């Protein structure tokens, strides 16, 4: 009996590889297991090899271990590319129409299975994915009825015939050659609670969070790995009276979002690197006009078109320092899917509270990796619209209202168009309290200080979540999806260090960081980019360069667990054994 298992499915793009994986994760999630999935994308749309690796466990993990316990193989390439990761006790299930004989490894057990055969006999070749799913589940000793209930859900729109064919395939799978199969079954321990948990990708969680935050307008332009956000919202917003528009480009997207937000609707746009570069002027406009704006940027490999389907975290610099001129901006950096949801709600609240752009900074792995999650709690959803002026608060003022009233906290009361007696002007030119252009130097200074200082309260907040192993010498800190891998690496090494992630990068939680630099001998930043971007930002703002080190990777793939472990060990050795 085991607590966790790593399973790979692979075949040719278009054969339903991803749906095998997703359905497997749904079955497991419905039984109370935690799952985490990682996809590889090939650069072609159809054809070409594709794989999905799934980790299943009793406790939540957000990383794929380096070794694979079981593989389901629908093409030869899958085996060739991944064989080196197979555990010594690994199991290979393969479609027996493949002639893998020659390449079959010795160290592992390989079981040929009649995947294509059963599928064709009971339905069509397209149903290989059901058949494959069935075999994997059988190997995990999962009850057939759990699998069929997921399939019924999945196919319920396709009609009885399709459902029955699929169920028939399952039936064949679950009765196939009991003797051979039973001998290799991998028995997972039963979860403590048999909760049926949801399965999401980060982009789902962002979209769901946006809905719950009251977002009712989206204008966006498709781009990997952000498109799912607009797709999800486009599908469900209309039923709630809202609207999603795919517009002509990212410049239109961000400006339309700004317009809708100015008019009082919580609105969002989502993009990735190239689109972000195009949005920078608009983001600056929101900063200057103090218009709330929420933008998702899910990072992929840059610069330029880079590697659109590969993982990186290299847009932090341009977000932290980018856009001509200087304006206030908040960067939230969720590290988990649960975090995505809550950060999104927080993003809308902060955008309205501080009247400025808020960036939700994701990465491809966090955006697209499916994962079993703990249900969010409705009670956690708290909405706050900031200093929004009610219609009844206003009387007609001879001199007009002041959208940029200078206040102690730098935040002016906000009036939405349509509100009686509230009409006013806003502009991306420097302006006075009335929102009218002026180049008076004193006014300029005051307005700059108003904008640049209004986020100061956030500097005091605790935005770094630290998992203490009470080894207060080294802290490994990261943001985004590497957190899951870091967590696992620390667990594997027997918790030799403290580790954590940062939830808000801008404004940088200075107070907490200064304390951290005091408390620890070494702060190690783990990030996926060349320039050690987060480490550089911390160095710029906090100093103590000699206490700040980096583990970074920039080859388009996420860290493996062992890369982090190696990194941890090297740094510990360097530090304490004078290497």
């Amino acid at each position, binding site marked *: 009996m085991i607590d966790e298992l790593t399973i790979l499915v692979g075949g040719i793009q278009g054969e339903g590889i991803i749906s095998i994986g997703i359905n497997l994760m*749904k079955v497991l999630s*419905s039984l109370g297991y935690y799952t985490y999935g990682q996809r590889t994308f090939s650069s072609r749309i159809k054809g070409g090899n594709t794989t999905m690796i799934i980790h299943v466990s009793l406790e939540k993990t957000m990383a794929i271990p380096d070794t694979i316990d079981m593989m389901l193989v629908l093409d030869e390439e899958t085996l060739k590319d991944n064989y080196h990761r197979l555990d010594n006790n690994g199991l290979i299930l393969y479609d027996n129409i493949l002639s893998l004989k020659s390449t079959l490894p010795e160290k592992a057990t390989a079981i040929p299975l009649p995947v294509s055969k059963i599928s064709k006999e009971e339905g069509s070749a397209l149903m290989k994915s059901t058949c494959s799913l069935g075999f994997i589940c059988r190997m995990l000793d999962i009850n057939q009825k759990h699998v069929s209930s997921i399939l019924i859900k999945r196919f319920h729109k396709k009609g009885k015939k399709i459902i029955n064919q699929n169920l028939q395939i399952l039936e064949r799978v679950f009765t196939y050659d009991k003797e051979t199969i039973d001998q290799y079954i991998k028995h997972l321990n039963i979860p403590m609670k048999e909760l*049926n*948990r*949801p*399965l999401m990708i980060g982009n*789902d969680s962002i979209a*769901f969070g946006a*809905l*719950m935050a*009251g977002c*009712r*307008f989206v*204008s966006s332009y498709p781009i990997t790995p952000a498109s799912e956000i607009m797709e999800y919202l486009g599908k*469900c917003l*209309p039923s*709630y*009276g*809202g*609207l999603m528009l795919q*517009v*002509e*480009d990212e*410049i*239109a997207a961000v*400006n*339309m979002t*700004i*317009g*809708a*937000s*100015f*008019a*009082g*609707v919580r*609105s969002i746009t989502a993009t990735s690197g190239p689109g972000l570069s195009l949005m920078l*002027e*608009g983001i600056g*406009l929101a900063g200057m*006009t103090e218009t709330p704006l929420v933008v998702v940027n899910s990072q992929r490999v840059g610069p330029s078109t880079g590697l659109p389907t590969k993982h990186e975290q290299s847009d932090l610099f341009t977000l932290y320092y980018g856009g001509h001129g200087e304006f206030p901006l908040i960067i939230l950096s969720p590290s988990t899917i649960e975090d995505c949801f809550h950060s999104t709600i927080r993003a809308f609240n902060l955008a309205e509270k501080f009247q400025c752009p808020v960036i939700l900074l994701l990465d491809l792995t966090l955006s697209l990796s499916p994962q079993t999650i703990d*249900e*969010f709690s*409705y009670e956690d*959803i708290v*909405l706050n*619209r900031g200093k929004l002026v009610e219609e009844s608060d206003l009387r007609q003022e001879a001199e007009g209202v002041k959208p940029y009233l200078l206040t102690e906290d730098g935040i002016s009361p906000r009036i*939405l*168009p*349509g509100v*009686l*007696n*509230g*009409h*006013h*002007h*806003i*502009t*991306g030119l420097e302006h006075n309290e009335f*929102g009218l*252009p002026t180049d008076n130097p004193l006014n300029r200074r005051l307005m700059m200080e108003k904008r640049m200082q209004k986020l100061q309260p956030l500097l005091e907040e605790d935005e770094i979540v630290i998992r203490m192993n009470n080894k207060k010498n080294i802290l490994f800190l990261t943001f985004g999806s590497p957190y899951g891998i870091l967590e696992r690496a620390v667990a594997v090494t027997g918790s030799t260090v403290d580790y954590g992630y940062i939830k808000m990068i801008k404004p940088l939680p200075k107070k907490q960081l200064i304390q951290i630099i005091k408390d620890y001998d070494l702060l190690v930043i783990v990030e996926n980019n060349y320039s050690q971007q987060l480490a550089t930002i911390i160095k710029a703002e906090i100093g103590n360069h000699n206490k700040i080190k980096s583990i970074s990777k920039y080859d388009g793939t996420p860290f493996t667990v062992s890369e982090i472990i190696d990194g941890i060990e090297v740094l510990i050795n360097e530090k304490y054994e004078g290497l």
Partner: protein
Amino acid sequence: MKSMKDYSNSINPNWCPGCGHFSVLRAIQIASAKLTIPNEELTIVTGIGCSGRLSGYINAYGFHGIHGRSLPIAQGIKLANKKLTVIAAGGDGDGFAIGLSHTLHAIRRDINITYIVLNNQVYGLTKGHTSPLSGRGFITKSTPYGSTEPPIQPGILALANGATFLAQGFSAFQDQLVDIIVKAIKHTGFSMVNVFSPCVTYNKVNTYQWFRDSLTNLDDITDYKNDDYQSSLNKLVETNGLCTGIIYNKAPDIGSYTNSNLQKPLVELDLKFNKEEFSNIMESFK
């Protein structure tokens, strides 16, 4: 009853004396008065240029955005709150150089807003550069030997792209301009009004007098039919785009977002979902 004064604020425009933009400003104010648009429902969005300053001179909600992006902002505002009367305005450079793609996509999208082009065929604010609407041979700081590119024909382009309301005005024809803007605002789809608004400082070719000599006034043509696509197009070709009046006006498209899809202004929707809705969505991920 409302009067023009109700839409004026006390700011003295920074335009050159005689600039055509004054007249467009006035026409918008008079049209608003004629339509008695409540000040709090009027929203003016502008781009960058001499023309862009317009929003700062109207007693209404105003958003002076960035160069070339007045239309995306205006569409966002209208989609968010369809109760507002939204007018976007900007220069010929704003709308046909840097903003050309937005202009054409906005036409296509046919959202119920009005777009007024303050067309002086030159870049005024940057102190005299060529515009895509400048004529061949036009000499500016950036075309010292005369512009070699044929000008965009904004009217023809708009019609070719499916505009449902197209009109042209001239700063010196104040009454006609007011009338056009009134009708443009009333049109329930996207309405585009291209106004010949002379730049007295940097355009010494397309002057008031030049326009007086060159323009055909469609109001003077008794049998002009503005609901026939082909005659509208022909008229534009025939006059080389130099005509004023309502050139084309047809019922906007039923697909258009603000006309049919939205039951309620988005801004009036409840922000918070109830627990059941939340749970249903959560279930859908299982």
